[in-house]
């Protein structure tokens, strides 16, 4: 193909519409052609810009927590980040099945377990056979009938050995699984502690921020006994709320924080739940730069909504 032919393919590649065969040819051409690379880059940016016409959808808070928990303590793997020769990046070539990545350590462990087990058993068998040779030497040269006896002994030995191996295999697999569970438990505890530490640090930073504002939220009709303290840093949007006296959330619902600037529409904040004693706490990022903020807490569908629909449980303005 000539350079001009490749140029014809660039826009289709950027639009994600190139068929596999042509695509391979283009990917081979790109490393040697600066002009095509530059053009592809520009066209890819233009194609990606199309995504701005799609309405964004905020994922539920649990999804965020889940994603962050899954990367916590697991460094990005170098082996899996091998660069590709793709035009821009070809995720299908470097795609990692996350379930596989997640279970990687487990598979690795059990494979190791398997390897260890096999080598042990091989040496066992070798020991038996060498013992047998010794016995053979001690008893002199084997007679004619000895070949058959030898063969049947070997068969029996092999049978016994595989039985042993099979049961060892089961024991080891169970042990690997148990150790893996322990590891996960420990990792879970560790990340929980890290989270607590991080949130304590957040609160510290926020309370000592020069632009921090404080608000006391008092309980409204559905929960007159509710009460909360809230700190908000207008420079960073960081906010922390600590509440008491909140009734437990009905299933499928959570409390949601709102930031209200003057008579404008309330801006959505994060969602949280109260514990059995009616306490709740949340560290959040709210829109920045609101000078005279009012805060409210409503009961909404789980995951939160973009405009308040439920009843107001608490409200108050910054001092």
């Amino acid at each position: 193909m000539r350079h001009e032919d490749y140029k014809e393919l660039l826009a289709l590649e950027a639009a994600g519409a190139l068929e596999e065969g042509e695509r391979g040819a283009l990917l081979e051409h790109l490393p040697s052609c600066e002009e095509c690379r530059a053009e592809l880059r520009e066209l890819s940016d233009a194609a990606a810009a199309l995504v701005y016409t799609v309405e964004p959808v905020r994922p539920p808070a649990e999804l965020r927590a889940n994603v962050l928990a899954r990367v916590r303590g697991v460094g990005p793997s170098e082996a899996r980040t091998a660069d590709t020769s793709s035009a821009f990046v070809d995720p299908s070539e470097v795609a990692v099945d996350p379930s596989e990545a997640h279970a990687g350590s487990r598979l690795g462990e059990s494979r190791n377990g398997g390897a260890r087990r096999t080598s042990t058993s091989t040496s066992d068998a070798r020991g038996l056979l060498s013992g047998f040779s010794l016995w053979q030497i001690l008893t002199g040269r084997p007679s004619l009938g000895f070949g058959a006896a030898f063969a049947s002994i070997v068969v029996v030995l092999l049978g016994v050995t595989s039985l042993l191996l099979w049961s060892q295999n089961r024991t080891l697999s169970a042990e690997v699984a148990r150790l893996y569970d322990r590891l996960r438990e420990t990792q879970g505890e560790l990340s929980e502690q890290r989270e607590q530490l991080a949130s304590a640090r957040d609160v510290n930073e926020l309370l000592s921020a020069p632009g921090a504002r404080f608000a006391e939220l008092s309980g409204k009709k559905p929960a007159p006994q509710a009460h909360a303290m809230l700190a908000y840093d207008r420079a960073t949007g960081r906010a922390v709320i600590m509440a008491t006296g909140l009734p437990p959330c009905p299933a499928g619902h959570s409390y949601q924080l709102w930031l209200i600037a003057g008579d404008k529409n309330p801006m959505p904040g994060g969602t949280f739940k109260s514990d059995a004693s009616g306490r709740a706490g949340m560290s959040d990022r709210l829109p920045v730069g609101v000078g005279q903020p009012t805060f409210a807490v409503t009961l909404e569908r789980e995951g939160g909504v973009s405009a308040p629909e439920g009843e107001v449980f608490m409200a108050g303005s910054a001092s």
Partner: protein
Amino acid sequence: MSLANPQRDAEDAEVLRAVARGDESAFARVYDRYSPILLGLLLRILRSRPEAEDVLQEVFLQVWQQARSFDPARGRAFTWLVTLARSRAIDRLRAVDSRERAARASAEEAPPAAEAQVWAEDEAERAERAEAVRGALAELPEEQRQVLVLAYLEGMTQSEIAAAKGQPLGTVKTRTRTGLRRLSEALRERLGQQVV
């Protein structure tokens, strides 16, 4: 105009470099900034909320594992993220039974407006960009606009578009090509040297 935002690009690239070093808070920043727009895209392609959320998780795990392979010289961070997400979604789409796809396409499960929400600070910037892209897209002839949207945002192959529109494959390819080049030019005119 702050639309072509080289500063934002540089910041994004820096954040992705931090992610490549294993910085979890940088990773959280990428997630917070781009998960709503990527979920919007995934939902558009997959038309199923549970699947879109599932793929979104896969995409971000991939971002974590492959941030190192992002090279700012080869494109913007936003483009890199969109390319990852789109490609994952299309893999998933191809795995889904074609009958189910047809059912989904007719169901047109668009996200309800009430769920379209992002943090207000990013929202203003996103809305501004969306406006510019819509404007640029409006300059294209209808048939070029259509093939671009079907190919990029619906994940349809050129042959599928040709079949759906009852047009020759060659025509569809030409329209995609011309359309994207025009879009790129229109964006450049609107935003100066920097593409959106």
